């Protein structure tokens, strides 16, 4: 059972990639990317968790009590910001792609390839 968080992380990574590979709609591709990314949140937070520990807020806990690892949480915070911003950038690209190609199917987006 203690493997569950890591297993879910691996599952999300691979299933998200499946979505990206199989997608016929770029909006869906972008949303699947966020699933791939969320696997990294679970893995990071999973490795920083300690059974019975409390959140890393030291205001109202005795100094001796166990705290979870705050470092991984900081890494995930950065990760979440990257998710939000890159998704916005990608969706702007997709909107433009639709304008230029008249389609959001990746199969219709071919220019230089022959």
């Amino acid at each position, binding site marked *: 059972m203690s493997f569950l968080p890591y297993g879910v*992380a691996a599952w999300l*990574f691979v299933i998200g*990639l499946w979505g*990206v*590979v*199989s*997608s016929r709609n*770029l909006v869906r*591709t*972008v949303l699947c*990317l966020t699933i*791939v*990314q969320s*696997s*990294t949140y679970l*893995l*990071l937070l999973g*490795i920083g968790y300690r059974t019975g520990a409390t959140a890393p807020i030291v205001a109202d806990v005795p100094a001796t009590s166990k705290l979870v690892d705050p*470092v*991984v949480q900081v*890494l995930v915070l*950065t*990760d979440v910001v*990257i998710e939000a*911003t*890159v998704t916005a*950038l*990608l969706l702007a*690209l*997709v909107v*433009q*792609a639709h304008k*230029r*190609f008249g389609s959001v199917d*990746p*199969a219709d*987006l*071919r*220019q*230089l*390839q*022959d």
Partner: protein
Amino acid sequence: MTHLSALPVLVPFLAGPLLVAVGHSAPRWFNDSVGALSALAATTICVLLAVHAAPHPFPYWVGGWRATHGMTIGISLSIDATGAGLAAFSGLLVTAALTYSLRYFEAVEGLFHGLMLLFMAGMMGFCLTGDLFNLVVFFEVMSAAAYALTAYNIEERAPIQGAINFAITNSIAGYAMFLAVALLYARTGALNMAQIGAALDGRHADPLVIVAMTLLFVGFLTKAAAVPMHFWLADAHAVAPVPVCVLFSGVMVELGVYAVARLYWVMFAGPLGPHADAVRAVFAGLGVITALLGATMCYLQRHIKRLLAFSTIAHVGLFITGVALLSEKGLAGAAVYVIGHGLTKAALFMCAGVLLHRFATIDEYDLHNRGREVPIVGVLMAVGALLLAAIPPFTTFMGKSLLEEGASGAGYNWLIVIYIAVSAVTGGAVLRATGRVFLGWGESEGPETPQHQAAQEDVDEERGPREHTPVLMVLVPAVLLVGALVLGLIPGAVPGMERYAAQFIVHANYRAWVLHGAHVSLPVLPASHISGSDYGYGAIATVGALLVAGLGLTPSWSAPQPRSALGQRLRAVVVGLRTLHSGHIGDYIAWWSAGASAIAGICLITLR
């Protein structure tokens, strides 16, 4: 001097927002000068840092959180000559690109300059940082700016498609790196690269460490466009604005190789030390595949920017083999080659930019004989092509000779054949284009392909052909080419690189100066000399390039009719290769996954 350490990142981080905030109402000269001057300032600081760190590399603890007893909680900028030198090189190319773009196109409201500066800050932070997570953060800074810059010409179709493929592939590469950081953090309880290296030392490399390593390497090699994670590159490099291409091909891609080298020797050389032979074989193989595929695809292109993009893939393959040799010769060769190639490729893209600017097309056949109007650009392109072919005795040749020495030193003599072939084919492809465009040699009509139409579509969007070419647009590539010609000839430059490389590959060194503030001095090496056989190989490559160009310009050869069985098979291979580069992001990610799992699988099997 050490106080300057954070400034290469800080200067563009202050100038970028300034340009974005006031650029829309400021006059053009303001945006141009703030952009170019801050790039120049950051470059100068990097040069100063490189000079200062050359004898004794040093860490700079951001926020004053120094290491105590080899334990860190803060982030270090770990500054040595290699990192700061590469940062300075990227700054130099950004300065050159911004200078070139003074006359190249109308930039929008300071956003172009602002994003270029952020891109530079990302590259510089990437080169200087000593913290693994911070490295990934700066990778993302660089990427976010690069995605937007790729799609700069939103009124055309191809840039949008190229940017989407670029952004999705590189984002996934980033996620793989996040997983790797998590794995290594769980194992070592550290994020500082030196400290991770120390913690991994002396332990058996179990699957966790090996997979973490391959995920990191696959991530950075995606940026470096190693096969089969390379598909995004040609799509993006062929369509980004020329000043941006200069940076992509000239330095961004090479940074991926730099990161692999850095991480290997700082973190993984300890646990994988007993498996050095297997590491060498796996990554040299990857480099060779990349080089051969890149060279083949390069020769098959008629869209000149795309041709140059594939030549970059071919050369990255060579750099990967150089690093994979795991010797100071190989690494020094790759470093010298990166500088020579970066300057040359930047100049070649700028020449392509002149053609696009003047004739509003970048198709080799459309441009047939039209280059006669700008003969000087033809000269520049020919010089660039010969430099790509590593003509003796210039910088790229120096790099290639070192690679060859490294290869024979490691018992990989057959790599020399690859080096010669790749130099000859990529140089020859550019020479072929030069001959057709500037001298009117060869046929003027090529087979009708979608690529041809894409190259022509630019005609409607650009403001049509122009009568004049600004002097600056010829001057900047000329200066870069002069740099590529003379840098390797400066006495002491190449041997100096060898010494830095020798320092770079000593696993324990980095840790000593980062974590314990030790003074690490440069090793003294026996003076290496270029032997007669190196000149022989160089001559073969140059002649080979001329032959390849000649073949490409001979009518009966340029459109191979499948007469013989061999011809038919060759044609099938060509068609197959072209179909692989389909432009479909689903294909690219399927290949990416295949590459990642294959590399990880091979490493798991061979490095146990």
